[in-house]
């Protein structure tokens, strides 16, 4: 096997001792060579310096590439951190604005309000509820109205010690006595489907126009009078029905809702 290898490459048979001797001999020869002051040696020095320079350049390039790679990793990590921080700051700013608006609303409001944060939402089709972080310990009772600065949200359905569940006006079982703010026409608010409610039981000849504001009515025993519910989006008159079909678009955007108020008691109704 060794002979075969030898015939392929004779240098495989060279011993370490021989290589070592070669290195020593070459080193001694080069020392003598460089002791000359001839033009050849000057040229050799130039060539070797050039080669050395190229070698150093290659090493330096490799090192700089390594450093750049490390810097890139550091910068990527930093960018990610900053993006996260930026996102958190934006979130804080938005929350700040929202809470400011709610505080302002609470201060201006005539109601005794309990602020609550939404901690969960029901994902079921027929039951539309929100879970709030306040309960009986904070004075929450069943059927208390739930509002947002934009308008009516729903009412308290169940209460536990520190949480409560609010039924939305978008729930199929929700009912509320409401009226058209402009013409004082009364009706019953029911959920229609999608993002729309309907003002039912409004006579066919009633004075209702598109864009009319719908508010809670004094007939309702649960809700204070005058809380904005939504605006009339569509009116349909049918020859075969005694009532108008009035579609109401809720004033509250339920998708972005994060904080609400529970009305503990109404000192006086809102002026219409």
């Amino acid at each position, binding site marked *: 096997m060794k*002979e075969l290898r*030898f*015939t392929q490459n*004779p*240098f495989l*048979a*060279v011993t370490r*001792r*021989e290589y070592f*001797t*070669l290195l020593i*001999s*070459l080193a*001694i*020869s*080069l*020392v*003598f*060579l*460089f*002791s*000359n002051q*001839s*033009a*050849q*040696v*000057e*040229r*050799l020095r130039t*060539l070797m310096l050039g080669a050395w320079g190229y070698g150093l350049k290659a090493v330096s390039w490799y090192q700089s590439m390594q450093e750049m790679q490390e810097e890139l990793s550091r910068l990527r990590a930093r960018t990610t951190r900053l993006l996260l921080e930026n996102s958190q700051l934006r979130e804080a700013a938005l929350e700040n604005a929202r809470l400011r608006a709610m505080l302002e609303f609470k201060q201006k409001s005539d109601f005794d309000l309990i602020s609550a944060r939404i901690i969960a939402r029901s994902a079921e089709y027929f039951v539309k509820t929100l879970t709030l972080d306040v309960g009986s310990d904070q004075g929450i009772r069943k059927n208390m109205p739930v509002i947002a600065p934009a308008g009516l949200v729903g009412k308290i359905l169940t209460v536990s010690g520190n949480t409560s569940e609010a039924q939305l006006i978008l729930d199929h079982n929700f009912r509320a006595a409401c009226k058209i703010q402009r013409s004082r026409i009364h009706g019953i608010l029911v959920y229609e489907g999608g993002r729309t409610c309907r003002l039912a039981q409004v006579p066919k000849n009633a004075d209702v126009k598109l864009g009319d504001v719908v508010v809670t009515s004094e007939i309702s025993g649960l809700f204070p009078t005058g809380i904005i519910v939504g605006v009339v989006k569509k009116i349909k008159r049918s020859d075969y029905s005694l009532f108008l079909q009035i579609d109401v678009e809720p004033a509250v955007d339920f998708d972005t809702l994060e904080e609400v108020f529970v009305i503990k008691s109404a000192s006086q109704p809102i002026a219409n």
Partner: protein
Amino acid sequence: MKFIQYTVLFAALLVLQIVVLPFFAIFNIVPDAVLIGLIYLAMREGGVAAMFTALAVGFLRDAFTSHFLGAYMLSYVVAAFLAGALFKFREKLSSQIQMAYLFAVLFSFQLVYFSLYMLDQKLNLAQLIFRFSLPGAVYTLVLVAITHFLLPRGFWR
């Protein structure tokens, strides 16, 4: 004893190289008897002995003949190393391969030496090979052939 024999041999080869062989120069190309001696030493005693001898002989030749100290030392060391490596198992090689290896050693020596010597002159690789290195190697190979026929059979073994 061996040391004395080789010292005498290389002293004789140096004198031959410096004094006699320049008379046989063809177009300034002189065969290298010292190199033949080094190859012989590498075959008989191995690469290490040949390299150390190359260092000493090269130094002497540089000191006596060249204005470029170290050039012969380096060239002889390279040639001795190659000879030591290539002829390590020479009995297992065919005569053609041995001849090719021999020529490779001779040519390498000439190439290294002339590369160093001609450093300050604007020579291209073709000139370096065909004008200087190759003729020197061929001429030395002729001298090897002559030696081979003149010396007793089995001398190289």
